[in-house]
């Protein structure tokens, strides 16, 4: 599964994208978030306030704790500021 990071999340994590093999116990979005935060202090800090993080699953906004079955691409990013 591909994970994308944009804007300050990208610069803070020092990473624009990564490809991960999901451990078997990670079934839903919340599981993935816990998995990422458990990596190190940088990830934990970046995802400490989920109010300032938006999530897209296969390029569609999600706000629920969706299943990751069959998902190809997840993106984490700050609220958008285009226009």
């Amino acid at each position, binding site marked *: 599964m591909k994970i994308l990071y*944009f804007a300050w999340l990208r610069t803070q994590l020092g990473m624009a994208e990564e490809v991960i093999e999901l451990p078997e116990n990670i079934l839903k979005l919340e599981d993935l978030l816990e998995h990422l935060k458990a990596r190190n202090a940088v990830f934990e800090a970046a995802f400490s306030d989920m109010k300032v993080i938006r999530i897209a699953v296969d390029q569609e906004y999600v706000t629920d704790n969706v299943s990751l079955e069959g998902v190809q691409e997840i*993106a984490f990013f700050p609220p958008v500021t*285009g*226009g």
Partner: protein
Amino acid sequence: MIIVQDAAFDTGAEIKRLTDNNTQIGAVVSFTGLVRDFNDGANVQSLTLEHYPGMTEKELEKIEALALNKWDLTDSLIIHRYGKMELGEAIVLVVTASAHRSDAFEAAAFLMDWLKTKAPFWKLEENSSGSENWVKERSSDIDAAKKWD
């Protein structure tokens, strides 16, 4: 039509392209967003716009489809740039064409309000002091988008 590009665009040429040879159009509204010298911070010198290739196009298509469904439009156009832009450069263009001016005005305002809150673009401001700053979400933009719900 939606276009996501790094190149500059010409507002006048785009308006002309949309209206030429269509004699049912009575009203054309355009909105152009420009890099201005103050935003979250003062002394903005340039902006770099990051986007999410793939999702950006999908979101703009959805927003345009909503507008075409809600208002009586002959045609519409959204151009949004990414990459680095200097002061005074155009970032975004929305053009709506209709037989009636109220449809053209409302649809253009809606497209901008939704684009501001839904299209995955992020602005990095570069100030004259050399510092960089990710622009923050504005509550006024969220409120503006809510009024169309």
